[in-house]
């Protein structure tokens, strides 16, 4: 069974978000990494890039398929996890901790209400 973690918010497209003040840390869910299977490459947009909610912020390449990762919120990318770029398998092994993808500065806090709570995300699985 895929892990769903407390304290995070989720999207219908299988991203998770951890919000601390005006910074959102973003990654993909345990379910998503299971579906993708062995991840071999990750490309993340550069620091400073301004992203609208729903736009692609990263591409995750698994052996068999590539998957776009969509931004759960609008904002400016402030940090990129270089460890997953050099060791993409971290996403498979630790999707909620070492496998985070990037952080962004939240531009529009009202959008947070569009995210799924853990219970809502749970119901979908």
């Amino acid at each position, binding site marked *: 069974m895929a892990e769903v973690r407390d304290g995070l918010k989720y999207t219908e497209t299988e991203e998770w978000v951890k919000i601390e003040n005006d910074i959102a840390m973003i990654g993909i869910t345990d379910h998503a990494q299971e579906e993708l299977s062995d991840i*071999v490459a990750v490309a993340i947009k550069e620091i400073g890039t301004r992203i609208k909610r729903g736009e692609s912020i990263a591409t995750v390449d698994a052996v068999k398929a590539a998957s776009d990762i969509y931004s759960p919120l609008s904002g400016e990318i402030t940090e990129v996890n270089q460890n997953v770029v050099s060791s993409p398998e971290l996403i498979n092994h630790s999707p909620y901790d070492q496998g985070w993808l990037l952080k962004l500065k939240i531009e529009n806090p009202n959008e947070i209400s569009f995210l799924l709570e853990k219970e809502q995300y749970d119901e979908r699985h």
Partner: protein
Amino acid sequence: MDNTIKKTPFYKRHVDMGGRIVEFAGFYMPIQYKGVIKEVGAVRNRIGIFDVSHMGEIKIKGNDRDKFISYITTNDPITLDEFQEQYSSMCYEDGGIVDDLLIYKLPDYFFLVVNAANTEKDYNWMVQNKKEDVTIENVSENTAQLAIQGPQAEKCLNGLFNEDISKINYYHSTITRFCGIEMLVSRTGYTGEDGFELYFDPKYALDVWDKLFEEIPELEPCGLSARDILRLEARYCLYGNDIDKTTNPIEAGLSWITKLDKDDFIGRTAILRLKENIKRKLVGFEMNDGIPRKGFEIYKDREKIGVVTSGCYSPTLKKGIGLGYIDVPHHKSGGVVDIKIGEKFKPGNIIKGAFYRRSNGGS
């Protein structure tokens, strides 16, 4: 669960053993068990098992079967000995490919193994082109098929059959018994490794599966993803990706199974004409940066010259590999083309032949 989607006789074991089930070609099939890299590695280094019961099987009987099978396929099945096999294709009159298939010459009939998604289409095509004394029987539902592949396949399997299966040559077969169950055992596969394919009555399916796992502890169950990667590393075509009704065998690199010198066959006239003016070729290319995927466009000097038909990350070679049609004259091996990935162009090096070749001979 959708009841119109079929299950193979091994379905229960796929679920029991943790296979992730997807719908493929009208069947519920395991796409993977423990992970594609693990499964590919098991087949390349040890031994893996695939349920390939979704594949279609068609028997061709009757006194005119030799003439008929030669007329509907592009290779030359007349040259086959009994218990020998041949990779072949069937074409439409315009040279487009109906399907690619394996032809077994057995003492009383030809046994054809076709792609799961094409079984009905192929059967209907054969019936439509039937000649004199020929009977065509779709036996797909009465046939369980397993592929056991990997360098340890011979060692692990030998001793489990009534016959010494190490004596079966590549692309040959025998009918023998496994735990008393009659099977057609052939030395064939779709992985680029040594291995065997077993055909038998589906009522014994679970017994055979369980016995194999009992006798071969290192046996790794493998899913469709691993199968697709293994076949691409070995540079085998996949119908629906690399070949279809809009491609002909010459541009697909299948001239070696297209015997234009034999008696007339369906598609021959068109292929002879097409051969004189081939506009594109199916090529293999490797990428050190980026992973090609089906549908990506191929460029040379910012001009579109082709499209990717299959692509993946090769766990064996640790790089991106792909097949695609490239316009002549940009198709030549040694050439470098640009694969468009998102908004970026990344180099693809065109190579000759298979991406992966096993070290201990064979092809």
